[in-house]
């Protein structure tokens, strides 16, 4: 399904994989996460605390929000008072209210569930964060707020990010390097480094560069758009 792919992510670097549906982005990400084993080839992971955020919040319905956020810490063997303190601090940073933490996930709105999922990911202080279209189903206001929260966490802890997305604007806003994939067999057809630091990219910068990016012949071919 995938062919001749060499992909490496440096510590602290943010890499975005963009490409049409079915080109094997998710497969590649699942390989990196260790959720799939490759038939051929090798996955070498020297990150010690990689974790993943999915498109759906995937909170455990039988756990209160606070325990959901602390899930990764519990898996690591931290005791309850410590992991709850960390989870509570992060939840408040992510914009959850104190009384939300006692609720079950089904009592939270979709936006609050996404915030909880983001807090759960940051709780383990990952050195590699895998994002599987994590922001695809959110409204633009919430999206931009979560982008901000992600940027702040990255600035504080310097974790690497490998994200897949359909959304070129999202890639241009968050990534240091964009890899374009094409399908059947899945392969990387273009690589595009962004020199502008993520913190300095304004809305206008993102709009302008997305417009320019989408006109490049390699990108158009990968997505099956007619040449312009």
């Amino acid at each position, binding site marked *: 399904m995938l062919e001749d792919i060499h992909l490496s992510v440096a510590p602290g670097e943010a890499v975005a994989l963009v490409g049409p549906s079915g080109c094997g982005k998710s497969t590649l990400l699942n390989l990196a*996460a*260790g*959720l799939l084993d490759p038939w051929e080839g090798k996955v070498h992971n020297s990150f010690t605390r990689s*974790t*993943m955020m*999915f498109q*759906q919040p*995937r909170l*455990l*319905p*039988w*756990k209160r929000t606070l325990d959901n956020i602390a*899930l*990764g810490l*519990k*898996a*690591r063997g931290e005791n309850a008072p410590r992991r709850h303190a960390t989870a509570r601090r992060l939840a408040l940073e992510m914009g959850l209210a104190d009384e939300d933490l*006692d*609720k*079950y996930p*089904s*009592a939270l709105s979709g936006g609050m569930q996404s915030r909880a999922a983001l807090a*759960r990911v940051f709780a*383990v202080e990952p050195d590699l964060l*895998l994002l599987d279209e994590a922001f695809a189903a959110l409204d633009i206001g919430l999206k931009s707020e979560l982008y901000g929260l992600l940027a702040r966490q990255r600035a504080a802890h310097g974790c690497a990010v490998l994200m897949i997305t359909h959304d070129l604007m999202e890639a241009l806003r968050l990534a240091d390097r964009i890899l374009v994939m094409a399908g059947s067999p899945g392969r990387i057809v273009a690589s595009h480094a962004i020199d502008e630091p993520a913190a300095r990219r304004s809305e206008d910068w993102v709009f302008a560069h997305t417009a320019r990016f989408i006109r490049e012949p390699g990108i158009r071919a990968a997505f099956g758009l007619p040449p312009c």
Partner: protein
Amino acid sequence: MRPARPAQRLLRHATGALGATGNYLWSGWGSIASIGLFLAAWDMTAGHLGELILPRPLEALARLQQLLADGQAWPEIAVTARRALAGFALSVGIGSLLGLLAGLSVTASMTARPLVTLLVGMPPIAWLILALLWFGAGDGTPVFTVFIACFPIIFVGAMQGTRSLDGQLRELARAFRLPPWMRLTDVILPHVVSYLFPAWISALGMSWKIVVMAELLSTEDGIGAALAVSRSHLDTAASMAWIVALVGSLLAIEYLLLEPVKRRVESWREFASSSS
């Protein structure tokens, strides 16, 4: 602000628990009303048919009270309850464990399915005959018959619970590197319990019916044996009294023990439905 928080939380939990108990008790009124209707229908039918065929409810209750008062009923009820609960406990233990394990593997659940169909299809009376040959008269026969009749229900519940576990949650468990014991206690068991509990409850009802049948044919004591005696004396009132004792003890166990435990274990479901 901070020191007040645990107290507040405690208060909130306490009012929540009180509210749940209140709701539970209040929901009992509906059941009491429908039992009242049933008794009225019984009484009317008894009036039409005559007391030799069907005694009136009050008469059956009076007879039961008399049996309880002269100390005749309690030992029989205790013997029957002991047998039913022993068989039930065996099938809960073995059925839940094997069902859980079978659900973890596709091969095992495919192998188990026709066997379970076979077990479900086998009439309890056939097991009873086999048990009589194997265990003779005594506790072994009713306990085994109850066990073998309840086992497939619980096994299937546990197996379906594990099989239907969301693949997304399994991925989550791997992505967050949950150790095996946490996968079990934090992901698999809470989900499986929501399938197991209904299976346990229907198996309990089943055990109460089967034990009486087994006693009727195989033992000298217990409610089933008492029913056989009252039948041979053509004593319909006593027969009805024993039936009321049987059904009453089953209802008591189900509503006073299992239902509150179920509500406790599945509180997250309750909150989910009340908030959406």
